């Protein structure tokens, strides 16, 4: 008896017969899966309308709630971007947009998009819906806390939106909220606006801690029989690592918010140095503004990976399903996600090269930043190799995946420029930075979100989205987004500063006027094109082609539920038993071009499956 199988020490008591796979005991050696370690989850069953649709504890409903709220905030952010672009492209066209208002739009656009839209959408929206389904569990392990986490997010959004209506308006300090300006007069919204922003962020952190606990523990401790960590879809790996980052990075944000709130409300001097304001010596003294920057970016850098990693995971799954090919180098993709996640805590001050911090730090952080580029590049190579000689279905989902790869590579390469201290110094705080982070955090993950909606809409609603409308939506969005952000690299190179209300009269700035007009027109067109998407969703809900079960012929568990759309409890009477990874596409010797995760080895005995 080889040591590896330890048949003598069968460690576990068998639980009830409920979870044994269907095959008879005589053919089970190759079909053997360990019996269940734990008894079935004790699910809460809602009985009233309120507990079914409002304070619902079912992760699928909570996922849709997060999705809708996040999309609402995203639309607010989108409208703010139109206002900003109107001012930059056609100054004085809209007299309402004063300098103060412009900075408020800049700030709210940034904070909404990064935190309230992207993070909430990926972790709260996709995470809640897909995690229990993809790991084979009936729901999250603590549904009550999951429900509370959504309502905390909702309250946080309400507080944030309320800041538009208070005297002084919302804060205009930039999404980075740097002190001392953020809490001093002269910055828009330095009264109630900044306080509401900090309060909203604190509520967001508390809510996401609760949600994050659910996602992590469900993935680690509530998988179904046969589902090892290395058989999970990369979507789960991406969301899982992002959640782990969120649990460890949000504390720094919470701490900096609390300290800034105290600086504002109680006139403490955590971040406030000795200041003379309009000739008056203020009561502050001894504080350190750069401390805020360190705390903020200790959060801020993992935050951008919290946005990027779920996108990486999801796009891997979308590519492999729609190219009918296993993701190339699955294990390395997993280690790359984990490695990027771990390293992301050691690169934060590459956002601070020009802040006046200890100059020696530049060496350390530039080094770590270049190191983190390695696993990221590895992932890009693997996506491309996955597509090589694959049976690619050029549908809307695949188009968005290809759009992701192109825009992410573009944004990633400009990141290498910015990661080096010397090159960053002239480029910092210019449009080059704006181009970089929009490409890599805005366009690329957004392409993934849209592709993911086209991909999973049939599961959530039972209907397909229109391919025709989808392709129009894709091409306008993709080409339009490129038209918006590619020229910005040139603007940045010639030195046009970011967060400037107007271009002024200097010769090199006026040379950018034409470019700015072009970008604005493109932005408005792309914004309008999103109505195609919304129209597609709303009409397909009623007249979309019925999807049936597993229309994409995918392998992962979310497509193998008893009902489509999945109902409370997800899998019906018996939980699924997993025998393989979700990437068995076009396996030589197999009848179909896909082998779902629950297919036992005895059914595909002639196929040359990988040992996973």
């Amino acid at each position, binding site marked *: 008896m080889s040591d590896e199988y330890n048949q003598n*020490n069968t460690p576990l008591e068998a639980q009830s017969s409920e979870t044994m796979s269907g095959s008879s005991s005589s053919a089970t050696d190759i079909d053997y899966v360990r019996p269940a370690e734990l008894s079935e989850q004790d699910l809460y069953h809602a009985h009233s309308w309120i507990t079914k649709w409002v304070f619902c504890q079912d992760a699928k409903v909570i996922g849709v709630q997060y999705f809708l709220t996040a999309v609402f905030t995203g639309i607010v952010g989108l409208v703010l971007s139109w206002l900003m672009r109107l001012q930059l492209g056609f100054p004085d066209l809209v007299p309402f947009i004063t300098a103060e208002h412009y900075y408020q739009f800049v700030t709210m656009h940034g904070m909404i998009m990064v935190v309230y839209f992207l993070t909430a959408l990926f972790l709260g929206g996709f995470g809640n819906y897909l995690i229990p389904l993809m790991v084979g569990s009936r729901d999250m392990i*603590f549904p009550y806390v999951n429900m509370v986490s959504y309502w905390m997010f909702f309250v946080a959004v309400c507080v944030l939106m309320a800041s538009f209506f208070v005297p002084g308006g919302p804060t205009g300090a930039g999404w980075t909220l740097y002190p001392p300006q953020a809490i001093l007069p002269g910055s828009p919204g330095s009264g109630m606006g900044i306080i509401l922003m900090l309060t909203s962020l604190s509520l967001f952190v508390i809510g996401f801690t609760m949600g994050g606990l659910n996602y992590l523990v469900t993935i680690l401790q509530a998988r*179904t029989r046969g589902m090892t960590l290395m058989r999970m879809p990369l979507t789960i790996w991406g969301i899982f690592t992002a959640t782990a980052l969120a649990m460890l990075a949000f*504390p720094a944000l919470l701490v900096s918010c609390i300290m800034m709130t105290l600086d504002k409300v109680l006139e*403490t001097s*955590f971040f406030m140095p000795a200041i003379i304001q309009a000739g008056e010596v203020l009561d502050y003294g001894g504080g350190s503004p750069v401390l805020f920057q360190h705390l903020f970016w200790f959060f801020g850098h993992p935050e951008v990976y919290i946005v990027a990693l779920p996108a990486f995971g999801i796009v891997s799954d979308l590519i492999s399903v729609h190219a009918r090919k296993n993701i190339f180098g699955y294990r390395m993709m997993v280690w790359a996600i984990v490695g990027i996640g771990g390293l992301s805590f050691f690169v934060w001050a590459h956002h601070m090269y020009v802040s006046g911090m200890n100059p020696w730090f530049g060496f350390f952080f530039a080094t770590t930043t270049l190191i983190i580029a390695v696993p990221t590049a590895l992932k890009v190579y693997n996506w491309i190799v996955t597509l090589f000689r694959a049976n690619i279905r050029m549908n809307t989902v695949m188009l968005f995946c290809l759009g992701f790869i192109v825009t992410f590579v573009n944004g990633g390469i400009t990141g290498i420029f910015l990661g080096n201290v010397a090159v960053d110094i002239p480029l910092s705080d210019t449009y080059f930075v704006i181009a970089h982070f929009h490409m890599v955090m805005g366009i690329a993950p957004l392409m993934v979100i849209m592709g993911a909606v086209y991909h999973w809409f049939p599961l959530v609603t039972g209907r397909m989205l229109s391919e025709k409308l989808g392709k129009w939506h894709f091409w306008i969005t993709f080409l339009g987004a490129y038209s918006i952000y590619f020229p910005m690299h040139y603007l940045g190179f010639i030195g046009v500063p970011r967060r400037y209300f107007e271009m002024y009269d200097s010769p090199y700035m006026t040379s950018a006027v034409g470019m700015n007009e072009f970008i604005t027109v493109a932005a408005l067109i792309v914004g309008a094109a999103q109505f195609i998407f919304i129209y597609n969703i709303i009409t397909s809900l009623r007249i979309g082609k019925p999807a049936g079960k597993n229309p994409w012929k995918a392998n992962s568990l979310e497509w193998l539920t008893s009902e489509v759309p999945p109902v409370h409890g997800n899998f019906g009477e018996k939980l699924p038993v997993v025998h393989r990874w979700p990437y068995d596409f076009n396996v030589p010797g197999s009848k179909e071009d896909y082998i779902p995760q629950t297919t036992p080895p005895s059914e595909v005995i002639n196929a040359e499956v990988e040992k996973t």
Partner: protein
Amino acid sequence: MSDNTLNNLPGGFKGMAHDMGSDQTAFKGVQWGKFMMWIFLLSDTFIFSCFLISYMKGRSSTVVDWPNTSEVFSLHVGSVPVPLLLIAIMTFVLITSSGTMALAVKFGYEKNRKMCAWLVLATAIGGLTFVGMQIFEWSKLIHEGVRPWSNPFGAKQFGSFFFMITGFHGVHVSIGVIFLFIFARKTFRGDFDTGKRGFFTSQKSDYVAIEILGLYWHFVDLVWVFIFAFFYLW
């Protein structure tokens, strides 16, 4: 997971590889609620670490002298100033309550309802005493002129960091005390024996909840160990 099965699993580094590579659960023998509490505590550790790091940075970069903590935090016994006396008593109380909590967990798993309930109550009372002393300390310092925005003893940031860090810790202790009283009542009533469903969560009660609360309480004690060392002693 029973003791037998846990003991039969490989240990050490090989055990970690085995656990991580296994299906269903990555952390054998760790109930969901307990694991959630551990992750929450890890997150909370990062919060307090960020506070203490900010304090370190603030104190190390001050050009105005930092107050002498032995003097500021001394209590007068008669006319003799005893440095850090109140803090020493607070530490004693918190460590005692940690001990009673650990014993409560032990008796809980042995299904000894009475001992468990009395020990949880003792822990709650210890926690309440700690909060009371912390409030007394705050009022004493406020009386002497220490404010979040300034103080008569030295650098401005002393008061701000003091109130913020001990305040945050005190809030954590208070929340713990509330839960301890609730759980003491549940234990006395026998809810953990009968598996009565909770009011909010509708989940069945089990003695593992005492262990979970115990983890939180020990964390609160752990943070105090660090605050005591860095803020009062250093």
